[in-house]
């Protein structure tokens, strides 16, 4: 036991004396949350748009009023003719143009039918379609409003409500993703680097010659990162809750238990990488390419998995963070209990045992 405590002490010295480790451990989570929470924001807000009003009557005025008061759009240009549209898109001043046909109001009253046209700058296709659907939504609402008195005999009204994220805030999506990324990074990359460093500096040779057994060496290496990763998990959930209002609707204990499970998995991947990597650089590259990129791109963190080509979808099934993100979203946003996440938890557990088994098999009690 003494041996183990001595080993732990040494590991903490390594971590606290290395500015780089400290930065990755404690700077990275905060910076990432701030970045994703504030900067990378896919929510619509004050989208600049223009109006080309050929009609200029009370109806168009009312519609324009509804649009500006929604908060999603900001009208900063009134066009005189359709010819201006091209130029104004090219300049990039506006993303969206709403065109009312001539005699819009009159037609609406007389024929019960009037036409608007929405023009959009689709050089950024995702945002463009999002903007169009928001604008259509406003028009639709108005449509319902003016038909309130004379209900059409057969019309379908769509009343939508966004469950689990009523305001469609993207930070709700990012917090689970960031949590998976950070825990993966801290646990897997840092452990693999720290073991690889011992190999590189030749101290592994001395550790191997000492009476320490492989299990003690590995446990001594992972225990500090288990503790630090757990603190990180608390910081991320805490920041999400207090700074961005991301709720934890389900059991907090269950959330933390699942996090510890995921940390264990990440640590076992880290150990596995270190048994393969000869030096710190290789360990770092392997962690980056094998862990970081898939975690960010293929886990469903940012890009929806169902939109990916089939081969990538297949790969996504072996990406551990995918399951962890599902678990996190279920617990935090849907507030469900273990009975809804046991399948994912089981997969993570199986992966953990798989990697520990592989590592123990590959960890050498000798140099070769």
């Amino acid at each position: 036991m003494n041996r183990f405590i001595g080993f732990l002490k040494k590991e903490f010295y390594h971590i606290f004396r290395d500015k780089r480790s400290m930065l990755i451990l404690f700077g990275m989570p905060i910076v990432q949350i701030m970045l994703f929470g504030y900067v990378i924001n896919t929510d619509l807000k004050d989208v600049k748009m223009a109006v080309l009003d050929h009609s200029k009557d009370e109806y168009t005025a009312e519609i324009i009023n509804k649009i500006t008061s929604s908060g999603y759009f900001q009208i900063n240009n009134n066009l005189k003719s359709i010819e201006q549209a091209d130029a104004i898109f090219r300049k990039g001043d506006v993303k969206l143009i709403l065109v009312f046909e001539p005699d819009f109001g009159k037609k609406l009253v007389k024929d019960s039918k009037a036409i608007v046209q929405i023009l959009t700058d689709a050089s950024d296709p995702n945002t463009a379609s999002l903007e169009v659907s928001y604008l259509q939504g406003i028009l639709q609402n108005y449509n319902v409003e003016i038909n309130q008195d004379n209900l059409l005999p057969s019309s379908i009204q769509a009343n939508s409500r966004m469950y689990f994220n009523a305001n469609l805030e993207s930070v709700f999506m990012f917090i689970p993703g960031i949590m998976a990324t950070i825990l993966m990074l801290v646990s897997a990359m840092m452990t693999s680097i720290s073991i690889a460093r011992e190999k590189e500096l030749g101290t592994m040779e001395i550790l191997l010659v000492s009476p320490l057994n492989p299990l003690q060496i590995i446990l001594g290496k992972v225990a500090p990162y288990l503790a630090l990763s757990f603190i990180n998990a608390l910081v991320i959930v805490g920041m999400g809750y207090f700074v961005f209002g991301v709720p934890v609707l389900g059991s907090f204990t269950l959330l933390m238990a699942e996090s510890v499970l995921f940390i264990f998995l990440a640590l076992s991947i880290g150990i596995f990488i270190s048994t393969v990597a000869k030096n710190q650089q290789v360990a770092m590259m392997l962690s980056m390419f094998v862990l970081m990129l898939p975690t960010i791109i293929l886990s469903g963190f940012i890009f929806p998995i169902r939109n990916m080509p089939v081969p990538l979808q297949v790969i996504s099934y072996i990406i551990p963070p995918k399951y962890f993100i599902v678990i996190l979203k279920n617990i935090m946003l849907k507030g469900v209990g273990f009975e809804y996440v046991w399948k994912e938890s089981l997969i993570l557990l199986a992966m953990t045992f798989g990697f520990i088994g592989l590592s123990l098999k590959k960890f050498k009690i000798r140099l070769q």
Partner: protein
Amino acid sequence: MNAGISIENLSKRYGSVQALKHINLDINSGELFGLIGPDGAGKTTLFRLLATLLLPDKGGARMGDIDIVGDYKQIRNLLGYMPGKFSLYQDLSVIENLEFFATVFDTRIEDNMDMIHDIWVQIEPFKDRLAGNLSGGMKQKLALCCALIHQPKVLLLDEPTTGVDAVSRSEFWQMLKSLKSKGITIVVATPYMDEANLCERVALIKDGEILQVNTPQEIVDQFERKLYAIKSDDNYQCLLDLREFEFTNSVFLFGQTLHYTDVRKEFSLEEVNSYLKSKGHLNLEIEHVKPGIEDCFMALSTKADGYE
């Protein structure tokens, strides 16, 4: 306890390179033994095999009665090993390094002070300095302290004095001598031939083979030819010219001079002198010198290579 080392028919191969070829060697308990050979001779491989870090392809070795393959765990308890590369934690202070290795072996610094006292007093003034900021000599002393903290019976030192200044080197050897008086078997690998004289017995090793095992004195005594040191203005050209000379047995650069032996037992130095003069070397100093270990090593290794 008997802490001698007996190596039998030990072979190790890395891919296509035969690093050790059927090594047989007996090192007595409590001996200060030198393993002398150039880089790439197989010294480190032999040490790693003895330290249970590598498995032999053929043959085996025992320390006392303990087998290095089967009972490697016991070996690891009684062994002190200092790898060639400085391998302590650079970001830990001197005292933290020592404390770490003490706890790893489940012991305390105080309990082993008698063992390391003489070395420890020299590095104690720097005990709070990070190991990475120590001088080369200090690092080696610290590494030696760490290797000794668990009172090993056998100490393996792989090139402990490489990259260390001359003063620290001689201090280091003084320490080894005093350690020997405590009954530890010490095996030192070194590429420096002059350090061979400080050992009780040495093994000359080259290309994975042991050329000879003997006391330094006897190795020198075996040198049968007369050895001359030749000094000229252009040593390199002189070396090339002597290689062309018909009576040359061996000639190689030795510091500032050339060491020359002749194939004939009896000959006149004048002959060599005039040959070199004819080649344009006018400013010559030739004197008879006593052979050192290095001369013997060169003689033995050229013999082993099969050309004379």
